[in-house]
């Protein structure tokens, strides 16, 4: 009965508020923080099926039929902070120290007393453990492949810090050098052997497992991933919403930070962007309990495939793409899969990560991701802006946390991340009118041409600016003057007592800016900026962009 009433209420609300839907701005726009922390009763823990997820996404049609713009962008076309994402380096530049620290709150597990293993898994040939340290903190311990030291641990640490700086919630991950004798076994701990059977973890079995791990001066190099604070609930899907989370009202495939993750994942070759590498956690914060959403497990990023170097085919094509298989069958071998043409570097610790053949929009994760597939030009533009923000010095500082023993490998990785950064940001910024960073100054409306700033386009753009008044009550637009063209990234704001007095309430000053550049005809699509008057001050309240059409992923 209660549910019926709620549905009736929703339906009534839908009918009664059609007019309200059409409103463009609210007084609290632009929303910088979405308080999606409504107190939530204890949610269920779920486990997803790996094969079901994989084949369901390859052959099925998951996610909504609506291929629309993201549903959670604010009026500035940005992503507000939420339980999914926190704007960090993309909005306010982090210090190098903060970038290097990433999500870490301390120095990693306490080495002053033995670590107690309370859970273990063989993970194929590479062992993995869960331990408690002297402080009582719990960590997941992972190792590098025996014959490729540093591969997975460096990738895990570097990518954790980059994805955290971008804005995603990520666990604290540390590289630790540890003596094999550091480990003790909690009685009753079992080991899942390579055949999936549970056997008791004995010292002999532990030593045998640790013998499969490479050592540096007799010490084991491990990745220690701190337990997330709160109750783990299992992964989130890249589509739909959780039925037991009241805050989760926007289908995940329509969340911009999940769509835009495709751009970051391409940059950093995070091919394993699937539900299984995410975690919902029921956290407590300021007396409220709600679900926070994390990305996990960055061991399969950059050139690492966790237990081996990244497979050469992954990231250049889906693990299985039926349409591609059809083309290959008919191609009789004359159609060469692009990944076959790629030359990879000879740095085992880096693995298969390169920039020459890399195509940011042609990049593919392991298997279709409904959020990635729905990424629009605007989503990509938002992500590209963040990608472009990192300086080579910042990237080098983050890469140094991977603690490579070979300086040449480290230098190669920095160079490649930067090269892919330029390819990625350049591609998506150039697809659209690349104006951003609008601000009202004493001299007028200032803005930046991001493509020119970052060197992705030759200088020489001019800007055609048309001012008008926008009335949100009836969505009407009243032109104020003829468009003017300037080469300056500063536009004089129309003034006059009548105009000033007419603004406020539902009336906004509106600037439509088209960028003219010989090499980029697509930039002529306008960016429209809305200014709200508050007293005698104007402030940017909204930005409309026109999405560039993107090639579908399949």
């Amino acid at each position: 009965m209660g549910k019926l009433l709620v549905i009736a209420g929703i339906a009534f609300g839908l009918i009664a508020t059609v007019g309200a839907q059409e409103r463009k701005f609210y007084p609290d726009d632009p929303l910088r923080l979405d308080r999606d922390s409504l107190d939530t009763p204890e949610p269920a823990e779920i486990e997803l099926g790996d094969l079901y997820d994989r084949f369901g996404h390859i052959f099925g049609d998951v996610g909504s039929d609506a291929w629309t713009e993201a549903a959670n962008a604010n009026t500035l076309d940005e992503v507000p902070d939420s339980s999914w994402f926190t704007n960090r380096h993309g909005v306010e530049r982090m210090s190098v120290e903060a970038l290097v620290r990433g999500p870490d709150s301390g120095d990693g597990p306490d080495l002053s007393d033995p670590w107690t293993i309370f859970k273990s898994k063989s993970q194929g040939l590479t062992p993995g453990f869960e331990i408690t340290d002297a402080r009582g903190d719990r960590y997941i311990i992972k190792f590098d492949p025996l014959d490729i030291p540093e591969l997975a641990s460096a990738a895990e640490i570097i990518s954790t810090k980059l994805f955290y700086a971008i804005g995603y919630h990520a666990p604290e991950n540390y590289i630790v050098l540890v003596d094999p004798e550091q480990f003790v076994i909690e009685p009753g701990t079992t080991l899942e052997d390579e055949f999936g059977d549970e056997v008791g973890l004995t010292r002999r079995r532990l030593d045998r497992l640790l013998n499969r791990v490479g050592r540096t001066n007799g010490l084991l190099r491990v990745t220690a991933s701190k337990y997330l604070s709160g109750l783990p609930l299992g992964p989130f899907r890249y589509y739909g919403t959780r039925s037991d989370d009241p805050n989760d009202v926007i289908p995940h495939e329509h969340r911009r930070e999940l769509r835009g993750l495709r751009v970051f994942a391409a940059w950093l070759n995070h091919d394993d962007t699937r539900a299984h590498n995410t975690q919902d956690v029921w956290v407590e914060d300021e007396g409220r309990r709600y679900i926070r959403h994390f990305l996990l497990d960055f061991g399969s990023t950059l050139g690492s495939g966790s237990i081996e170097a990244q497979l050469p085919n992954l990231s250049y094509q889906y693990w299985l793409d039926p349409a591609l298989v059809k083309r290959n069958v008919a191609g009789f071998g004359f159609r060469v899969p692009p990944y076959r043409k790629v030359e990879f570097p000879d740095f085992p610790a880096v693995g298969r990560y390169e920039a020459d053949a890399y195509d940011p929009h042609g990049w593919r994760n392991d298997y279709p991701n409904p959020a990635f597939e729905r990424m629009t030009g605007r989503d990509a533009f938002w992500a590209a802006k963040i990608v472009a923000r990192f300086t080579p010095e910042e990237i080098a500082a983050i890469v140094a946390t991977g603690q490579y023993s070979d300086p040449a490998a480290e230098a190669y990785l920095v160079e490649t991340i930067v090269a892919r950064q330029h390819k990625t940001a350049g591609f998506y910024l150039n697809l659209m009118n690349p104006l951003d960073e609008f601000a009202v100054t004493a001299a007028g409306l200032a803005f930046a041409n991001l493509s020119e700033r970052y060197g992705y386009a030759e200088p020489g753009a001019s800007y055609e600016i048309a001012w008008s008044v926008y009335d949100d009550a009836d969505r009407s637009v009243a032109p104020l003057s003829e468009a003017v063209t300037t080469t300056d990234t500063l536009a004089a704001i129309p003034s006059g007592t009548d105009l000033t007095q007419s603004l406020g309430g539902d009336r906004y000053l509106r600037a439509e800016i088209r960028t003219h550049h010989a090499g980029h005809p697509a930039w002529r699509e306008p960016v429209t900026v809305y200014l709200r008057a508050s007293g005698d001050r104007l402030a940017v309240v909204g930005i409309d962009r026109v999405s560039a059409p993107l090639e579908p992923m399949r």
Partner: protein
Amino acid sequence: MMMMMMMTMLLGLPAVAAGQTGADADSRQGILLAQREAKRQALTPERVSRGEERMRGLETWRLPRAVFVKGFHGLRPVLGGMPGGSGFVYGGGYVYGLDRTAVEFSTNVRASTLGYKQADAQLSFPTSRSDSPIRARVRAEYRDFTELNFFGLGTSSNVDDRAFYRIEDRTVTADVALDTRFFDAGATVGLWNGRIASGLRGPSLEERFSAAATPGFESQPEFLVYGGHATVALLDDGFPPVGLTLRIDAERYDDRGTGAFDFTRVVADIQAQIPLGYRSRILAFRFRTSHASADAGAEVPFYLMETVGGAKSIRGFREYRFRDARNVLLNLEYRWEVWTYMDLAIFADAGKVFSDADEFGFDDLHAGYGFGIRTHSPNNTVFRIDLSRSVEGFRLHVGGGPTF
């Protein structure tokens, strides 16, 4: 679609829902809060679908590796393991020492839908998990294959003369091998004791062929068998590996009775996998020739002769279609990648059997051609289907492992 309708409904209720919850209806956050409050009134436990639950159950199933490799306390089912043309093969086995490096023992019994039986036991030390390049093995095997094909000797035998015979034999061998990255070699010594009899399916061999045309049918000696092999594998570690493999085998069969069937066999096998520009298209080639030379006054028994025809030979012909003391075989395949783990192939096979060394050559070859599908891991062909044609019609071969 339903989800989008729900989202649209949620997004479309700001004023009323906000009013109901006390949220600020005239703010963006208030609208979102109202949507969330409304949803909170109708929360249901999050769960995965029944289909996904069932699929997860399958994922945690111990099949196939745990069951077929490790088994239950070492006891495990067995599929396959007999020569092509044996029918569907099934059985059971026991393994001890799967997690050990020093020694491993395994034993298996098999039967096939054609009524074939096979049993074996072997002791390996050290095991494949050891880092040692030297391995040793002791093996005992019993076979009872009841309806093996025989079409007569020589390269011009007639398919219509098809007859059947039975081989029931016991072999005990000991071998030692050195296995390194590019080179391996080994030596073996063993005893063979067998009985050749009428096929359980008619016509039986002796009903169609004379004793002179079936040397060794009437009496079978016990053989002391010894020999060795050497392989040079100039393959890289790419995916798939490309390069050249050369192998030579030499075996001596000593008739421990009268010496009437003493002979020596030498086999040369050359295989090449050549990328045509990229590894997504491979030209694979094999040349194999085997020569069994009987001592003066002795004969090579027909059941230990070389054959041509079958799943790993000329695929357009039946298993063991041509038989004689010597053979030559050529296989050529063009494989192209359609998926990282699947190739298609077109192939052509040719070969012949002959009795005298001076008949060696590439004239009068039997030939077949066809089309195949292979699924594979980075290092192994997991499953293979070949459809082949020859002058004797179409043959379909389904199985695991590579043709060559």
